[in-house]
């Protein structure tokens, strides 16, 4: 059966070039980078080379890039690390209501320690307003953390504008952005964004799982996340995941090289997919911003049906996608992002996210467009909510 993977915002396959770059570091170059003999030096220089590549991708100095075990760790570190190192200056954090759970649950956890957190609302497209951020600032505010783009609905937030506005204040407030969804997809430059901290994940850009990075601007006061050895400039202890870091570096290098080409290809496919769905299926809502949106993200709600049954039907046709429906969530709560943009529970139920990647072709898009209308129609014919023709 034909298989079409359209869940690239969830994870991506490791590229062959990336895997090849990694392989020697499992075997012949297995050294621990903290040692002084040749094996160790080899590992050390491989890590530094990867650091330069990741730094280059985001316009940072390599000394400001710290490797972690992934995006979730980077978010945890940024938020907890700033909160704990600066709590004598204040205990207030500003974030948005549509952040990834790695940010939201970390903030909630800090609330239990006595921090105050403001969760800003978003408009119907999922945009945070710059003036809302500024208005929420109090004398106690030490950190603003707003994602660069939303992982579910693809809306790109006005991070550079928020960064500018924060710089105008007479007091330093640290600014963190979770850029897990944007790095490698759209141009990301830490100076243009005006951020002090930025989270990245390798497995979203065709690198391995279990590796990420946190960009920390020089002069930022932050607590180490792990304590132990002197790795990562004493800020993140633990023997480095050398093969993972090497793979991350290679993935970053390739992402940078192919960024514009991929951007164009993906946005073309995205627009074709959105247009095709809208034309072929009635009662559909596009979620997220129509233009200020990630190039690979399609997120729609089909009224009157439920997302898990939609995913199961798509899977039977070989199509891999995701949904924000309560029934798919494990917690049985609908997506907090879809609720935050104002969708009622039953409409959030019928959400479908398709996220494109470099291996997707126009035929893949055509195939989805061919299969999807029939599935939606079948589920609607079973739905008590769907107004049946000539009804009773």
């Amino acid at each position, binding site marked *: 059966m034909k298989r079409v993977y359209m869940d690239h915002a969830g994870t991506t396959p490791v590229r062959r070039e990336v895997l090849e770059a990694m392989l020697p570091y499992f075997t012949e170059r297995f050294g621990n980078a903290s040692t002084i003999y040749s094996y160790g030096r080899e590992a050390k220089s491989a890590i530094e080379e990867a650091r330069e590549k990741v730094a280059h991708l985001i316009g940072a100095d390599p000394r400001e890039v710290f490797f972690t075990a992934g995006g979730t760790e980077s978010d945890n570190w940024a938020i907890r690390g700033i909160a704990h190192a600066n709590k004598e200056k204040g205990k207030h954090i500003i974030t948005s209501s549509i952040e990834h759970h790695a940010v939201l649950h970390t903030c909630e956890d800090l609330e239990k320690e006595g921090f105050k957190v403001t969760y800003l609302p978003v408009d119907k497209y999922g945009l945070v307003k710059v003036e809302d951020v500024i208005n929420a600032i109090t004398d106690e505010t030490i950190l603003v953390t707003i994602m660069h783009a939303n992982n579910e609905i693809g809306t790109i937030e006005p991070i550079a504008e928020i960064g500018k506005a924060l710089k105008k204040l007479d007091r330093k407030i640290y600014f963190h952005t979770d850029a897990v969804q944007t790095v490698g997809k759209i141009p990301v430059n830490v100076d243009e964004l005006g951020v002090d901290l930025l989270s990245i994940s390798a497995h979203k850009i065709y690198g391995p799982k279990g590796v990420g990075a946190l960009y920390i601007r020089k002069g930022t006061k932050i607590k180490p996340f792990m304590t132990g050895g002197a790795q990562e400039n004493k800020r993140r202890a633990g023997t480095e995941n050398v093969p993972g870091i090497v793979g991350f570096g290679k993935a970053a290098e390739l992402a940078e090289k192919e960024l514009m080409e991929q951007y164009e290809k993906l946005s073309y496919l995205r627009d074709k997919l959105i247009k095709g769905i809208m034309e072929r299926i009635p009662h559909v809502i596009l979620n997220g911003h129509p233009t200020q949106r990630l190039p690979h993200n399609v997120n729609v709600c089909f009224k*009157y*049906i*439920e997302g*898990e*049954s939609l995913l*199961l039907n798509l899977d*039977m046709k070989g199509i891999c996608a995701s949904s924000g*429906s*309560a*029934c*798919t969530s*494990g917690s*049985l709560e*609908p997506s907090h992002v879809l609720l935050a943009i104002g969708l009622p*529970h*039953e409409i959030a*139920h019928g959400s479908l996210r398709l996220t494109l990647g470099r291996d997707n072709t126009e035929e893949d898009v055509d195939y989805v467009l061919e299969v999807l209308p029939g599935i939606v129609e079948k589920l609607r*014919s*079973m*739905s*008590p*909510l769907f107004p*049946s023709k000539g009804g*009773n």
Partner: protein
Amino acid sequence: MYSEKVMEHFTNPRNVGEIPDADGIGEVGNPVCGDLMKIYIKVKDNVIEDIKFKTFGCGAAIATSSMVTEMVKGKTIDEALKVTNKAVAEALGGLPPVKMHCSNLAADALHAAIEDYKRKKERKDVAEQK
């Protein structure tokens, strides 16, 4: 995560639809995740002659709806009332723990349809006596 039996009922659900002149209609919402199920029954001589359902919900909700209609079609009202959500889940070869609540929906909708039928019948009987 679903058993073969669940997937089989999900893929080819039995008794989907509505009964225009149903003798009883049961509609139940699921407070856990917000789904909705509607069951229609046609009763003759105390036997469920025909039964149809419509469901807005997950794979387990659709499969349990299908299964419950199959289990009670041709049964008497009293037999149908004895069908529990556990029995439906068992007939499907089990459900993942997080999906057990979906099977409540099916049994509840069936019982609601029977209640509705009884209520309507009582009213009709009273009217006929007058």
